[in-house]
């Protein structure tokens, strides 16, 4: 598997706190990589560095073999890197379909004042993306009237509408109630696999991680403490004690 995303020796400290302390990581094309770890371990920092919001003090990030550090988020989007946010970033005054159409327009030509946002081709594509996510019925709903689970899905749908090759998701299921959570992840994984998108996601729910990640990277104090297939990593007593916070005696997979 060739690496689509490679991080080499990333270092970034905020005052005395090391958010990245020598991160080396390769993410293969088509892979689903979960990032787990305690709060403050630098998980979001990694996403922010990869998507152009933070610049590391040392190291390099290669995307598709080319260095991308220093490129603005705007440029990274055009290279095929998408992201969703821990707090969904939707245009609240617009309908769900309009949110999607804005993404499609951003890809296809944003600057003509004479082309309506809701022109049939863009409208249809927006509906098609929503249908893939199974939320076509929300198409006319105003984005600020959605519940948390739906907002998460729409936020990711917007990222997908930009047709990325790599998508970074910061806690795609946080704030979503238990029963909805698995349904959301199921949908998400199906859509992303179908689209052949490589995904890196920060996740706290070990059930989600165990079920959907190809590999898991465990973050601890700005370093990768463990990396490997979920059943291996999640079975590691040190990971279970320090990251997941349960006694090594319990079985993590009991619920899954």
């Amino acid at each position, binding site marked *: 598997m060739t690496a689509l995303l490679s991080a080499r020796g990333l270092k970034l400290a905020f005052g005395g706190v090391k958010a990245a302390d020598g991160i080396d990581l390769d993410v293969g094309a088509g892979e689903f990589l979960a990032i787990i770890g305690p709060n403050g371990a630098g998980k979001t920092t990694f996403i922010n560095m990869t*998507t152009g919001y933070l610049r590391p003090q040392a190291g390099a990030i290669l995307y598709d073999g080319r260095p991308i550090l220093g490129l*603005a*988020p*705007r440029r990274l*989007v*055009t290279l095929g890197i*998408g*992201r969703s*946010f821990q707090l969904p*970033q*939707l*245009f*609240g*005054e*617009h309908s769900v379909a*309009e949110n999607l*159409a*804005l*993404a499609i*327009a*951003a*890809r296809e030509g*944003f*600057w*003509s*004042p*004479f*082309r*309506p*946002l*809701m022109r049939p081709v863009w409208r249809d594509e927006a509906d098609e993306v929503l249908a893939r996510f199974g939320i076509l019925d929300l198409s006319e709903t105003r984005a600020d009237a959605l519940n948390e689970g739906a907002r998460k899905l729409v936020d990711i749908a*917007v*990222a997908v509408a*930009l047709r990325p090759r790599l998508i970074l998701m910061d806690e795609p299921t946080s704030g979503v109630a238990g029963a909805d959570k698995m349904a959301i992840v199921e949908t998400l994984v199906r859509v992303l696999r179908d689209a052949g998108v490589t995904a890196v996601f920060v996740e706290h729910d070990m059930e989600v991680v165990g079920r959907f990640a190809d590999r898991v990277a465990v973050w601890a104090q700005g370093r990768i403490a463990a990396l490997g297939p979920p059943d291996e990593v999640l079975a590691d007593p040190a990971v279970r004690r320090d990251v997941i916070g349960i006694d090594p005696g319990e079985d993590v997979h009991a619920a899954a």
Partner: protein
Amino acid sequence: MSRRAELVLALLGAAAVVLLSWAVPWLRFVLTIALAKGVAVLGILLLLRAGQVSFGHALYLALAAYMAAFGASRIPDTLLLLPLAGIVAAAAGLAIGLFVSRYRGIFFGMLNLALSMVFYSLLEKFYAVTRGADGLRVPATTFGGAALSAEGQSWAMLCVALIAAFGSGAFVKVYLASPLGSALSAVKTRETRLEFMGVPARLVLLAAYVLSAFLAGIGGVIVALSTRHVTPALAYWTTSGELVFIAVLGGAGGVLGPFLGAAAYELTRVYAAALVAEAWQMALGAVLLLVILFAPGGLWGMGQALAARRRPA
């Protein structure tokens, strides 16, 4: 509100304007000015959509008005002067917009205010060119080559104002439905996401800013050619404030709002000034207070709410 209903309302409004101008001749001038301000306020509306308030758009209005005053002797035709001065205002809007579109909120508002006050001082101090506070007389202009009587001129200016109002209203409506126009409210709420769609939020605001400068310029030319006299007061911050006042009064929800607001403003001003000479500003202040407290959608929003209430019954 459907596009058709809006067009019908606009046509009814235009008919009312023409009828009033015919029945009460002195209102012709008042309504021409109201339409001109309505055009300028359309630009303010675009910026309001992006959550930005400019307290300096009188700069563009005055710039175009002075351009018309200076240009009228060389290019004496209204139909040439109007777009030319509009383009000059838009060019100034581009130059200044490149700078102010980096800022948001209070900084955006105050920078615009500061720049317009600089322009105001220039107009006042360069007496040799601008005649200072006395201002400049604007020579009479022709319309497509035809010189008209005073009466004909005032009707022609009203027509020009009506056409400008329809043209700019229709364009702004189309603009607001385009990605560029829709993204304005995205600038207000979620710049991060806009950037992460590959769209520079600054350019979205800049495009609207240039358009708003153009519209303020068009309004300025009509004001200059109707009043036939320009003074630095056109660039003073109270003129900018007036545009924002009208935008809030009319409501930012639709393109008819600015015209509704401008007509209400000018008519209230004229009648209140006649009735309670010293207190007309107080009357306007009270009206604005009531609008902000009880009808945040402005007069247009109020009308829409009434229409919506009646429909199901």
